[in-house]
């Protein structure tokens, strides 16, 4: 047998083996159940046909997923090769060395194209630990027909005082229309997130520079009292148990004059298949109190990260580059239209003329750009995060505090009592944690 033949046979064998290995590689991805993620699952075959890497999906409800992936990563269980995590977990887990740094992404990926606010929120010490799949802020969604009927015009950047005035004008008990619908449900990611950004927009903060809780300060009292009075006067009955889903249903049924919530809701309320008011929705930036330069808008991203300890880091990285790339956005746009692409992650998306025609695109981008997770409050704070504080203790602490606030919404205690309890809870938790 000639040397040429031997070399040829060896090369063929090597290629066959490599192809077999590639096809044998299957990565497991833990993810949340939302429209963009489900859509991505539908395109998995495209990725597999391009790379030969198989993909198994584990889809879970957000809170279950959070507990599930936290257990796995802290014990190095190795169940997942990619985890869908948020802006809260990423810097904490990155600092703990639990995530593979995404510092060697390819040039074609163009990491600089990721919106700066997203990149900062998903980094620790300047290193990116998760790639944003989609991002969101919060904004005002309002009924243009009711606003017109009330003889008012929504400014691009309203104040809380205007929001109250508009809520009073649109509230109509006879037609079962609430002036405004907002989250009151207990939980750090539900009502807790909303009241935190509201407090930011009144000049309040969770902690001062020495990590001393600030619930005993007048700004918190002003913010919480304003919220409670607004909702008691013009909000839906039982708002203490309303979260995103409940308010979405109310708005889609035409029972809210305004709704301030995640920008991702814009595509739901303008979809005629699900919403009875799809043709009468306008958008504005989240409000602020007069004289305060911080608005009540948050910043969040669902991002893909690789847990340290996975045996398939290379394949996982390949998937992340594909799923969060410009090409993926174009793939979705081509098949399902520009309104259905994952928003809020890349600058280039907002420069695309077709996307600029989507009614909520401009306000979504403005809202995201107006959010600064490293400088979220009027007075300086020692933490990163707008609707959360990026420390491990926050989730438990904020859930307890939001339960106290929800008790105020339900009429079970006063604003003063809730703030006093919040101060005591936060002080005890922070002392116990050694801050």
């Amino acid at each position: 047998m000639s040397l040429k033949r031997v070399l040829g046979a060896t090369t063929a064998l090597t290629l066959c083996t490599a192809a077999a290995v590639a096809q044998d590689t299957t990565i497991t991805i833990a993810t949340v159940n939302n429209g963009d993620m489900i859509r991505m699952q539908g395109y998995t075959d495209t990725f597999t046909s391009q790379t030969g890497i198989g993909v198994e999906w584990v889809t879970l409800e957000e809170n279950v997923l959070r507990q599930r992936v936290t257990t796995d990563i802290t014990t190095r269980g190795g169940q997942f090769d990619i985890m869908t995590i948020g802006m809260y977990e990423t810097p904490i887990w990155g600092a703990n060395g639990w995530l593979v740094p995404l510092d060697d992404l390819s040039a074609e990926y163009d990491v600089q194209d990721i919106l700066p606010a997203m990149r900062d929120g998903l980094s620790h010490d300047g290193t990116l630990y998760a790639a944003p799949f989609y991002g969101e802020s919060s904004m005002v969604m309002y009924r243009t027909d009711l606003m017109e009927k009330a003889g008012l015009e929504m400014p691009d950047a309203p104040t809380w005082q205007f929001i109250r005035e508009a809520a009073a004008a649109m509230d109509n008990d006879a037609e079962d229309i609430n002036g405004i619908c907002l989250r009151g449900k207990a939980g750090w990611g539900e009502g807790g997130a909303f009241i935190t950004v509201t407090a930011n927009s009144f000049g309040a903060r969770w902690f001062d520079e020495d990590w001393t809780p600030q619930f005993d300060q007048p700004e918190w009292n002003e913010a919480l009292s304003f919220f409670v009075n607004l909702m008691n006067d013009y909000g839906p009955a039982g708002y203490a148990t309303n979260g995103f889903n409940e308010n979405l249903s109310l708005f889609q049924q035409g029972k809210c004059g305004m709704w301030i919530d995640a920008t991702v809701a814009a595509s739901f309320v303008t979809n005629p298949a699900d919403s009875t008011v799809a043709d009468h929705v306008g958008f504005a930036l989240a409000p602020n109190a007069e004289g305060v330069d911080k608005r009540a808008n948050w910043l969040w991203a669902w991002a893909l990260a690789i847990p340290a300890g996975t045996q398939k880091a290379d394949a996982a990285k390949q998937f992340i580059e594909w799923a969060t790339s410009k090409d993926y956005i174009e793939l979705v746009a081509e098949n399902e239209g520009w309104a259905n692409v994952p928003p809020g992650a890349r600058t280039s998306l907002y420069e695309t003329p077709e996307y600029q025609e989507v009614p909520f695109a401009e306000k979504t981008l403005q809202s995201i750009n107006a959010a600064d997770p490293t400088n979220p409050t009027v007075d300086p704070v020692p933490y990163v995060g707008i609707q959360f504080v990026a420390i491990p203790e926050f989730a438990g602490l904020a859930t307890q505090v939001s339960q106290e606030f929800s008790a105020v919404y339900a009429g079970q205690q006063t604003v003063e009592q809730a703030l006093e309890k919040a101060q005591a809870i936060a002080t005890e938790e922070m002392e116990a944690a050694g801050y």
Partner: protein
Amino acid sequence: MARAVTPRRKALNTAISWAVGLLIFFPILWTILTSFKTEAEAIADPPLFLNFSWTLENYAVVQERSDYMRFLWNSVIIAGGSTVLGVMIAVPAAWSMAFVPSRRTKDILLWMLSTKMLPAVGVLYPIYLICIEFGLLDSRAALVVILMLINLPIIVWMLYTYFREIPGEILEASRMDGAGLKEEILYVLTPMAIPGIASTLLLNFILAWNEAFWTLNLTAANAAPLTAFIASYSSPEGLFYAKLSAASTMAIAPILILGWFSQKQLVRGLTFGAVK
């Protein structure tokens, strides 16, 4: 002496029973109805009871998105395996407690029951680490053993109660006829306790089927049962009620049908020994 029941009272009792039954069944009925609505109809206000445009679209979407049969098969293996294994261990245990009690039998029974008072999350990390050590994460075997251990106190308690109703003299007679321990349990005790064992099996199968803490926390892609299937349709932001209802209906359908056909045995088993 039994009290005479007037026809009027009987009718009233029947009406109340039906009302309570319907009240309890209503959430399931509503879930099933919602699964045939469009998303807009699912959140309509006032709610639509029967006057909506019936559609199977939600089932088609769920079927397209999820491999239902894989989840179903895992549920059957996990719930069935843990129940059968539990009964195999519990029969001898309940026999010894019922027929050869010691001074501490009552204490042991109470202690066994007290393990049910421990919140599951309290032992999540130790069990997770054990599963990692033995390579049992995301395996049906781990869940069969864990769910068996969780339900074992209930199985032992139920069987113990049934066995206590069986006269010890019958077992003594079998021993005099030369039956060993194995024969006594297998050929004398077990056939007499079949209704009790059947209801224990059924009840524990339902408990294991519905168990959602361990089945969600110890599984990923391979061993996930129907509880994980439902969890994949729940979302704090953008909940699709009609699709979630379709997924829920598909998840509860097998156990609902099983319960429907075996309700007589269930009621008989659960009320066994209640009337002295």
